[in-house]
């Protein structure tokens, strides 16, 4: 009731509407048809205020609009953030404040044929569910719109925590650290290791990738073609020969 007290003008208007509506209800065929034929009297006003916390209204009102049921009715915001959308027949409407920068939650406003207003949360699935909202509307922005995706930035931690990298780094560590821990000069140990190596590499005929790479790089580097090729050949053949 206090809200009504605040707007005596609107109340008067609604009362005027009430009188007219009561005359019309009997012959009303359907809300659509009925409304369109009545020039005035049962048109109401949706009022409210939009608030963006921490931002001056002057900075955003010029880009804002109030849309009632899509673009069926359009209202504009006053310089203090309040708004009124006029000339709305009774019914149920979704009221939205749209700006390109801030996000406002839509509100459903029900207007009875007598002009009683009720605001509630929009629920498209359970359309009859009523969670009351204050009327006149108080729509508070829930923050700026997030339009953009974050770029996947590249960091060392991402790189290191990658499972593939982990799989590569751990064996490397083992290769580097193991010889330090185990004495390689021990001939027995060496024998054992060679055996295990042979087991790991069942097909000695298969060309080794590292060998191929060394061949390639030494070939490109050499000063004279013949010399480099012969040297690379000798270098390449030596470890292979040794392994056998």
């Amino acid at each position, binding site marked *: 009731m206090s809200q009504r007290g605040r707007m005596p003008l609107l109340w008067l208007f609604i009362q005027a509407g009430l009188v007219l509506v009561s005359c019309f209800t009997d012959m009303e065929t359907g809300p659509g048809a009925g409304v369109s034929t009545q020039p005035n009297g049962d048109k109401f006003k949706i009022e409210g205020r939009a608030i963006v916390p921490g931002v001056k209204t002057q900075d955003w009102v*010029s880009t804002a*609009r109030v849309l009632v049921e899509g673009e069926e009715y359009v209202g504009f915001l*006053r310089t203090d953030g309040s708004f009124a959308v006029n000339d709305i027949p009774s019914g149920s409407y979704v009221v939205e404040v749209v700006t390109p920068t801030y996000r406002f939650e839509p509100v459903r406003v029900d207007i009875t044929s007598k002009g009683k207003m009720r605001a509630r949360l929009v629920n*498209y699935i359970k359309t009859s569910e009523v969670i009351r909202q204050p009327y006149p509307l108080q729509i508070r922005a829930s923050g700026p719109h997030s339009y953009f995706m974050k770029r996947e930035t590249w960091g060392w931690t991402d790189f290191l925590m990658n499972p593939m990298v982990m799989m590569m780094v751990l064996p490397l560590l083992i290769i580097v650290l193991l010889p330090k821990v185990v004495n390689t000069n021990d001939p027995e140990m060496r024998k054992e290791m060679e055996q295990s190596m042979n087991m790991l590499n069942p097909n000695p005929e298969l060309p080794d990738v590292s060998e191929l790479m060394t061949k390639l790089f030494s070939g490109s580097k050499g000063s004279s073609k013949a010399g480099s090729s012969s040297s690379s050949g000798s270098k390449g053949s030596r470890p292979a020969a040794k392994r056998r």
Partner: protein
Amino acid sequence: MAKLILLLLKLCILFFVVDAVFEDQVGKFDWRQQYVGKVRFSHFDTQLQSSKKVLVATESNVFAALNSRTGELFWRHVDKTGPEGNIDALLHHAQDAVLVVGNGRMLRSWDVNVGGLNWEMLLDTGSFQSACLVGQQGTVKHVAVLKKTVISVHYLSNGHQKWVENLPESETVDYQTVYSGGNGQVFVLGVVPHSHITIVVYSMEDGEIIKQVSVEAPWLSNIPASCAVVGQGTLMCVDSTTMSLNTLDLHQQLQMTQIPLQSLGLEVDPDFHPSLVSHQPNPAQKPLSEFFLQLGPERYLLLQLNNGQIVTLRDFKPALLSSFVTTGEKTVAAVMSPKNKTACSINLFSSDTGRRLLDTTLIFTVDPNGGKPERLHVQAFLKKDDSVGYRVMVQTEDHTLTFIQQPGRVMWTREEALSDVVTMEMVDLPLTGTQAELEGEFGKKADGLLSMVLKRLSSQLIMLQAWIAHLWKLFYDARKPRSQVKNEVSIENLSRDEFNLQKMMVMVTSSGKLFGIDSKTGEILWKHYLDNVPKNAAFKLMVQRTTAHFPHPPQCTLLIKDKDTGLATLHVFNPIFGRKSQVTPPALPQPILQSLLLPLMDQDYAKVLLLVDNQYKVSAFPSTKNVLQQLQETASSIFFFLIDSSQGRLSGYRLRTDLSTEQVWEVVIPTEVQKIVSVKGKRPNEHVHSQGRVMGDRSVLYKYLNPNLLAVVTESTDVHQERSFIGILLIDGVTGRIIHEAVQRKARGPVHVVHSENWVVYEYWSTKSRRNEFSVIELYEGMELYNSTVFSSLDRPHAPQVLQQSYIFPSSISTMEATLTEKGITSRHLLIGLPSGGILSLPKMFLDPRRPEIISEQSREENLIPYSPELIIRTEWFINYNQTVGRVRGIHTTPSGLESTCLVVAYGLDIYQTRVYPSKQFDVLKDDYDYMLISSVLFALFFATMISKRLAEVKLLNRAWR
């Protein structure tokens, strides 16, 4: 647990389909142009000398403030379309702008600096006549609004009504104008046609009638058109029948004094209705005693009323336009007169003497592809030496605004015709000389091995040359500071880029002006104004020949049809240069019912356009012998359909060899129950890559890909919310067979439809639940294909399987279109224009009738999203981020040369162009591709190999020594 997995799965899917813009991509390949529409009222903000604002109220129901230095928008307010948002009047005082909106329904006051609303007042119903600011003792505090039967006066500060009075004898008197001279009185002027003028004088204080007089004026019927108040309150009227000026002192109101124009030595052009223009510099003061009299289309007179005598100050002949403007205490008259064919000169004249002011000539160059100048908006200012300087905004017939500074420097132009784009096409740019050379090599038939080799070599050489030139240019540009390097786009150096991402946007506007816009930069490369376009014309733009057929120029044909008479004309032009083609289009004496572009080509590679007239006779364009012969051969396979929505009739016709037609089928939808709203076929340039969908159990569900399928949308004539419905019919356009019919009860339009591949998506308003709903229909042949090579409507015995599902959409929509790519491999998205101005890219995946309610192993295998009734709108899916498009009316999608990329143009009040990647950029490196990382890793690896090789050598040597 199962729920958790489900959620995870959902998130996973969401993550993969997300198609958002990255912040650093802003403005990289997208642009927006904002428009306001055809200007109806304009005011320069003069409260400060340095103010840069031009207030404009337009016929598109837009009120905006433009920056007069750059032409950009400070702010813009877009009201409802239609008569409810129509702006009737714009009054401007200090930092308030008062608008009368919706035939006098609403009075709004805007704060010009902030762009916010001061107040809004609902007025009583009644047809709006006139409004004016009312001043008293030098200050303006009120605004008077005159309606058919009532006058009301409101405070400027808060809009509250000061007083409202019913007009006396309003049944007989037609009140038309309200005037105030700043002395505490409001004059209301009305007329009883062919009888007398009624003048009612109200007291400003309380609305009391001070005086009410009638004066004989049997010749007068329209006061605003032929009268003006000048001087100390003298009503000056021009009578075109007796060729005389009539004066009436509003304060004494004795009778009209007639001054024949002949006595002033003036003659009026025959058939011209002379008019008067007066000027009231300040609403709190009296109008000037000087005024303009227009005597002919190119003749103006500057007259002065001096103690009841009319003195001719200056005769402007020839003069196109004239306007008064006041700055400080000085009032000057600006007159535009034609100089030669391509230029007009504007001069300032002292208003009280008619003398020309020195050094005030300004040259306005008339665009030969534009319209004639229509209105002159002048901004005057005082220079330091107290002389008057000025700038003008010229409005031409084609809705263009040109802002010019002395001595003729164009500061900016706004093509406001682009606020109302009707249809558009995107045309590939032509190849460059070298590219064309290469094309030519492959196009021609071989004439010997040696010559082929030579040709190959020569073209290779040309390419090398071009490449070196390009490198040189890069090097040359790199040395210059970045600001100087500008890639000037002009018609001459337009050429197709590597991936065919840059195209020519050919836009047709309702005003009849055609534009060619570079899709990369948004620059207008050509414009062409068709000045004989009827007001209510319908346009259809067709690309008859693309740029692929060098040396034949590309060719577009615009069909302009008068909606009332059905008579049509063709405009044939080159879409790259905008020039009218030499090809003479056929004259079309009969009303045209239907037009269709056939895939047949004539010997010059122009596609054949068939036009069906109201006698069901078909004419072809071009109609060479070759074409007619081809038509005869293929006539039996050419079908077309006609829609008569007024009678609810859909009919299919077949072409006969003699170019007459025969009716094949007819479907009548009774108009008493429902009316046809729209009919949608498929896009002819659409490719479908996969014929079916692989199911979870590795079987294939084949799509029903009927290229002749039409989706017909109907709405019930009964609008009651319990009984209204919308229907959708899928009809084969060749046989007339109804493939499927769906009815949505308790629903009403507007219905938006997208029809593509094997699916139809439509959106409607559910009156029962008061929400917008999407529904999708998908058609499948089943597990096996009847004839996998060709589709024939005549030989398809099995009816397709129809799947349908509906969803809730949490917003109403303005328009809808589907993305389109070159080969149709990329997944599809729906582009949905929302009333908020956002363009949502919704993956088609969400609109899939096979979305399961209960998730199973197979549906997971198929990557189906579990059904949820509500579709969500995520702002990350807005392809235009915060670049909202006002009143989106259409979205145009075109494939580019890259399969992943689809070019999108959204048009409405604004134009927005961007690219979308529905399946992300899978065929090119992403623009955030880290070249640094990959090259540093490569180098690191290289050096690591070198070092390890060296180490290995040392080690081997050491071992050898051991």
